[in-house]
């Protein structure tokens, strides 16, 4: 774990790393300039940028920064392909797809449940417990959130019920993986099946074929009076759901907790070196229990956003694998809150783009849905820097 500060000295600018990063940026620009509002309609500038990007990539690779270097070469090639695609599309198509403010707003909407889920994953795995069951915990929050809001007549209480339900399911995972020393991946898989069964059963039993009522209390949107009507910012951020703001606020909060507080340090030490943590008197198992349960509550909030926050109803298996994307985001973000946030925004953006692409081209949008998974596959393969999990992640701890 290096949490060093970033200080760029002039001499470092000629080092391979900044060159590689510049290559990344230039490569990406090769595509961006062909999009609105720039809309360069010839390929030449893109090719020039991409060639410089490849050159910087090669320089960085030769200088020892292989991953960034190869990354910028790949980005440059992809950007040229993207630029060709943009040039082949008409001006009006580009106008329909790349409405930046709407794209950003949609990306944030898609990212919100993932942020909660990924933060839940971060806290769980930082304490040394693998959580494949995020999907199930999200699904619990998704159903019980709206059930609670319907039953108790308030979205606040609905969110509380969601957290209790997610926390309870997480408790099951905790008991199995901490006390009964189960294989945590198997246990998490079981958790997912169980959640699918519990929510579907309860939903059918309670609501029957009519589904949830239409007038359930919903989490409100936050209308920012100052910027609501200010062009891009107004359309992108002026009318976001309260839970999106909470999710975004949780990222620095979680970072502060994990890396700047005593309890955060304790939690991380339990996940890295439980034996040492035990030796200095930390209650290893208890810390892990708390972490797993909190993780279930966070994931449940993410699920609840879908039902109580965004859609206002529930359907079976509503999370549809978002827990797995959250898991992917956590790994993509290298088990760090900020990294997880960038990953969820990237994945959310891919989703939003897929949505908008489906207007001019219904078939192609579908392929974009696979993008988060392809990126994560590339990430775990170590192409974009090595993702390293906490040292004791997945190993049950047994006191001597």
């Amino acid at each position: 774990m290096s949490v060093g500060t970033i200080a760029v000295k002039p001499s470092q600018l000629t080092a391979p790393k900044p060159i590689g990063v510049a290559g990344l940026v230039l490569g990406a620009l090769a595509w961006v300039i062909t999009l609105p509002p720039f809309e360069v309609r010839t390929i030449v500038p893109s090719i020039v940028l991409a060639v410089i990007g490849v050159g910087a990539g090669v320089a960085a690779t030769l200088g020892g920064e292989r991953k960034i270097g190869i990354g910028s070469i790949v980005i440059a090639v992809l950007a040229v392909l993207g630029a060709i695609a943009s040039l082949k599309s008409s001006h009006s198509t580009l106008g329909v797809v790349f409405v930046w403010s709407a794209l950003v707003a949609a990306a944030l909407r898609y990212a919100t449940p993932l942020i909660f889920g990924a933060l839940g994953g971060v806290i769980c795995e930082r304490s040394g417990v693998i959580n494949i069951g995020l999907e199930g915990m999200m699904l619990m929050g998704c159903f019980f959130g709206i059930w609670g809001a319907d039953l108790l007549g308030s979205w606040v209480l609905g969110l509380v019920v969601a957290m209790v339900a997610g926390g309870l399911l997480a408790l099951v995972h905790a008991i199995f993986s901490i006390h009964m020393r189960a294989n945590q991946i198997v246990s998490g898989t079981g958790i997912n099946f169980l959640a699918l069964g519990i929510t579907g059963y309860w939903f059918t039993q309670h609501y029957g074929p009519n589904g949830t009522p239409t007038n359930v209390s919903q989490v409100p949107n936050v209308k920012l009076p100052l910027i609501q009507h200010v062009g891009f910012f107004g359309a992108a951020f002026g009318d976001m759901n309260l839970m999106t703001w909470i999710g975004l606020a949780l990222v620095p909060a979680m970072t502060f907790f994990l890396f700047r507080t005593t309890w955060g340090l304790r939690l991380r030490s339990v996940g890295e070196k439980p034996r040492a943590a035990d030796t200095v008197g930390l209650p290893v198992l208890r810390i892990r229990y708390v972490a797993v349960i909190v993780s279930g509550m966070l994931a449940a909030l993410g699920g609840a956003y879908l039902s109580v926050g965004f859609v206002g109803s529930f359907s079976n298996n509503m999370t549809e694998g978002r827990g797995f994307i959250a898991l992917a985001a956590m790994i993509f973000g290298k088990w760090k809150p900020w990294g997880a946030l960038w990953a969820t925004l990237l994945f959310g953006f891919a989703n939003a783009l897929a949505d908008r692409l489906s207007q001019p081209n219904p078939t192609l949008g579908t392929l974009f849905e696979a993008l988060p998974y392809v990126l994560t596959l590339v990430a775990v393969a170590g192409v974009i820097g090595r993702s390293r999990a906490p040292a004791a992640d997945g190993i049950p701890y047994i006191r001597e």
Partner: protein
Amino acid sequence: LTRLEDELEATAEQAPEAMLESPARLTAFRRGLGGFFIPLLTTLIAFIAAGLIVLLTGHNPFSTYKAVFNGTGLNWLFPWVSGSTRSTAAQDLQQTLLLATPLLLTGLAVAFAFRAGLFNIGGQGQYTVGAIFAVWVGSNFSGMPAILHIIFAIVAAGLAGAIWAGIAGFLKATTGANEVISTIMLNWIALWVGVYLFQLGGPLQDPTQSSVPVSKTVADSAKLHVFWGNPLLQGLDIGIFIALAGAIVFWALIKRTRLGYEVRTVGFNPEAAKYAGMNVGRSYVKVMLICGAFAGVAAALDILGWKFQLFTNDIQTSQIGFYGIAVALLGRNSALGTVGAALLFGALITGTSQRNLDPNVFDPTLAQYLTYMIEGLIVLLVSTDVIALRLVKGGRRISVVWKGRKRDEPAPAVEEQG
């Protein structure tokens, strides 16, 4: 060689001392009745727990389970069942066995990986890719002779599944990428690629039905022969024998081949395997290729046996590959156990299906979710048992890779055993 194998197995089973008092007893237990006893007990507990939920929600668990049982068609086995009940039961039993066929193969796909200490969550993706290739080969090339066409389709599906799983094996061998994560990702990639291909306007969508997101229909020459029941009412096709042959191949591979020995050694202790001169990375690739082939063939048997076409909705909701995880775990990753577990889950899913469960006794929609609960409970309960008896090696390997240690550092054996 055989003695060595025995020693290896024995040591593997002695490792989790914490769970039972005496390692010797544990070994004896497993060799004898215990091998069947614990899975049976697990299943029983899961069914009782689910029964309690049925009771708590105001239904009668006994009549529910009786209706589910009758829905499975297993009452066909009772000689006193006769008349129309018997013919209905026969149809139901055909359904159960039709479903057990792919479950057996996806179960083997997960079990084979477990034997090598790998966790293949990607059975679903391998199944999807296999289904895409099976339906593509099956619906084209209609001029081929039947036998060749069928073999072509099955081999294509098997190869496709193998390559899909092989990606995960290759990534693990070359970059150390955790196969749990990579197979989950491959599942979703396969799903979206499948939806892309067959959706409205997709490249492989049936051109004669432009408003239905479905593939073309499999040609008659590629359909598997139905030997029991009415082919028009989804009678039982010969696919089940191919699946059973798959179980025999699994057993023979594990017990009678050099590869199987390698697989078990790698699964037990990758370090030792490496020092014994085995190429661990290459065995990971081989293992995943074989796993994927099992799952791919499972899809081919479904497509050529009774589905004949592939809907995008089917791709998105299919759970066959995920059930395979439960099947393998409950079957303790052995060939015979997997056959039994596949039958159990095939029966459970059929018995709780919309088509077979009497809605006057219990709502089939509820029953389907009851099935998921039972599945979840079984997997949860097996998760501790499995780590004790078989998976200590697998579990340890996963955790070692997960935390991305260097290969030459010692495995955390001390912590595991306390």
